[in-house]
């Protein structure tokens, strides 16, 4: 969501939930409503996450990519530098399994980090992000992404009526 965002602070989850319901009654689409809070709120308590969480697939992709890399490392070093050691086969299977497994886990970890960070929207240092440090005082920031103009006015009024503190419209990304 980007563009104009109307935000309002609410004391406690009950007030925020009422305001959320009021916004949805306007009507305002579910995917335009979200919250900023210092503790994670249960999904559906105030807002609902409509987008599917996709990055766990990258964990699996990373695992296989890592397994392939580990296999290449083990087989590569055996075949590029074939020396007989201890009467063992040049392509020794059990050590290959160990190395493949370890690098596979490494791949899964790296995949999760990268994809997780990207999907969470972290590291967007150059964008202006919507934020209010007062959420750490027990307040919840209810955010609604709106079209500027009449819809924004409507939302501001609704939030104020529901008990929102410092309801304002801001430019920024959520």
């Amino acid at each position: 969501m980007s563009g104009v965002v109307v935000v309002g602070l609410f004391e406690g989850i009950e007030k925020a939930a009422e305001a959320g319901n009021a916004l949805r009654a306007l009507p305002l689409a579910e995917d335009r409503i979200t919250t900023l809070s210092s503790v994670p709120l249960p999904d559906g308590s105030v807002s609902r996450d409509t987008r599917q969480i996709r990055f766990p697939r990258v964990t699996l992709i990373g695992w296989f990519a890592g397994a392939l890399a580990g296999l290449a490392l083990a087989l590569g070093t055996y075949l590029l530098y074939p020396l007989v050691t201890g009467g063992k086969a040049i392509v020794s299977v059990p050590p290959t399994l160990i190395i493949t497994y370890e690098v596979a886990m490494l791949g899964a970890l790296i995949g999760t980090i990268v994809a997780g960070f990207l999907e969470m929207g972290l590291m967007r240092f150059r964008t202006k992000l919507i934020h209010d440090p007062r959420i750490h005082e027990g307040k919840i920031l209810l955010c609604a992404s709106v079209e500027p103009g009449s819809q924004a006015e409507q939302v501001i009024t609704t939030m104020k009526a529901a008990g929102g503190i410092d309801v304002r419209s801001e430019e920024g990304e959520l």
Partner: protein
Amino acid sequence: MNGASSQGGGNHLARTDQGELYRELSRSNLPATRRWYAVVGLLLLVTLWGVGCFVYMMKVGMGVTGLNRPVMWGALIASFVFWIGLSHSGTLISAILRITNATWRAPILRGAEAMTAFALMVGGLFPLIHIGRNWRFYYMLPYPNSRQLWPNLRSPLMWDAVAINTYLLGSLTFLYFGMIPDLAIARDHATGWRKRFYTVLALGFRGSHNEWRRYHVASTIFAILIIPVAVSVHSIVGWDFAMAKVPGWHSTIFAPYFVTGAIFSGLAGVVLVMAALRKVYRLENALTTVQFENLGKLLCTMSLLWGYFYFAEFLTVWYNRNPEEWEVYRSYGGHYLPLWLSMVVCNFVVPFPLLCMRRVRRSIPALCFVSFLVVVGMYAERFLIVVTSLARRNDPFIWRNYFPTWVEFSILAGALAMFLLLYTVFAKLFPIMAVSDIQERLFQTTDRIVGGTTVESIARPEAAGEGEHG
């Protein structure tokens, strides 16, 4: 504040002054005092002394240690295994307790995860310290070179290299990722250079609903991934010994035995570190007897498990009387009796009965005493395994005892000082208490009236990626 729910009272977070809570939990991040600088200075001194002794050893040769033929591995390798073992603390607590949703884990999460990361860093140095030509360590790295040489991945030492690096990256990620919401809170409270510092590190996390949901999924995935990595790492360290043709080392039980011992020593380490943090930064409200009692229960279980594994190993050798292995065991009653007794007494005979007593588990000083014994006993166990099997190996003509020299003692002291130094600096700069996890737990806890009494009720945390339950 929060409206009263129909079940009798708002959640515990609503009753808390979050600002006050943050100030209490972030006491370690206050500007450094003279006492802090003194402690850091002392630790730095000991670390540098250790480094100096290492450089001396590198220039003069490994002969300045007490090593000999046949005891080619000694205190340095025992320390390597010991520190990697200590690193299993964070994994157990953060990962396993996270997956099983044990709610008491919140205050000790960060401390344990930090311990894992730094114990791994210190432990990972020892393979570089103990090799004869340290300046050629890169021969063990698989890089293309003009002579077309590659390392031998059949060697358990190479498995060590791959596994420990994977685990190090995993635990650093786990530590950092877990800190992101806390860094965001710290950023919002900080001023000056700290604000810039935390702003960069928090990566723009603001606590939006979508961020939290994905954060939970990612944390769970990391936890699920890190557990098999941790198990495999210490199995591989155990296989450094089990793959050898040394009597007393060549045992199939070594992989699970070492993992159990690692978790055991890691837990004891966590108890000691958290007790120290609690004392120094006055975190009595967060680190309560609940945390320590539960750690004590886990420690009791691990002590029993360790005793079971050790007995199983001892029994098979005793029963079989295979002459090569029996000579090693005979030395436990001879020259190595003090070491063997320390191990058995400090790992099982004293801790297990004590930890069975609730009074001991609820008393932090008693628990610290037991944990200290365990740490000493586990070091004795590593030393016993490494040294005695080599000292009484196959050919009796070359049997020889081993004792570390001042150089090795200095390097060990330097390693400990380095760990404490890293930890102290970390606690000063980063949030050492998982504020967001503690807040989350308070948010989920409400008081429920059941009949004529009031009980604490904890809401079931949102299952990762499952959406609504209908």
